């Protein structure tokens, strides 16, 4: 139930981000200066944290999406749906830890 709410919310958030992400990337077609100016405004700790939150949302949606697919197509998926949710949460932590170390040390490490 709550995994469904989480899947829905992350799905919508990612969708709106994707609209903006295609628009900002399109600036490479305007000029290198325009692209760098806009990307430059993202290079601060607040956006760095926002990016981390976005990756967290995508990783959850991706693993939980695979769980939904397993429940739908795997004979025993239904029986193990609760264990699969634990697998999603564990994999989420496993993926997020190295990413957060990397991202936060870049964002706050001032390199």
């Amino acid at each position: 139930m709550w995994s469904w709410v989480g899947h829905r919310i992350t799905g919508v958030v990612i969708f709106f981000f994707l609209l903006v992400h295609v628009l900002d990337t399109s600036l490479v077609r305007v000029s290198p200066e325009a692209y760098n100016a806009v990307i430059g405004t993202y290079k601060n700790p607040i956006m760095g944290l926002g990016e981390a939150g976005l990756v967290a949302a995508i990783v959850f949606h991706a693993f939980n999406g695979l769980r939904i697919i397993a429940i739908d197509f795997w004979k025993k998926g239904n029986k193990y749906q609760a264990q699969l949710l634990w697998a999603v949460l564990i994999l989420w932590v496993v993926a997020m830890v190295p990413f957060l170390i990397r991202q936060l040390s870049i964002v706050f490490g001032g390199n």
Partner: protein
Amino acid sequence: MATPIIDAPRSGKIDVKYNRSKGGKGSFEMVAWLFMRLSGVVLVVLIFGHLFVNLMVGDGVHAIDFGFVAGKWASPFWQIWDLLMLWLAMLHGTNGVRTIINDYAERNGTRMALKTVLYVATVVIIVLGTLVIFTFDPCPAGAVTDLPSFCTAR
């Protein structure tokens, strides 16, 4: 503390008289359902690869600038990768949001209006993104700052 209860959509809280079009769309919904799952599997690979190469390798987020993007799109490999990711993610996301609109917008007019905005946005973004990937020039004439190193040949 009482546990909050969220009704599942179409769980009967909507009067049957508001039930929408009767049948006829069965096979479309079936294809859409399958598409969500197939595109989901492919998107895991495309998106994880995208995030890994852009955020984990080299200098991470801070390395992203025009030169970085130009360096990637100089290769047909990343052009195709990003093109597939654009189309699949937009169609998957649009279909997902369509489902959500169908679930929560109970008035016919509201539903139509929201879906019209959704479809227009989807077409604009897919066409724009596709044009950018295919008409992109990594070494634009007149530009001086921050070109990828291979542009010096010009």
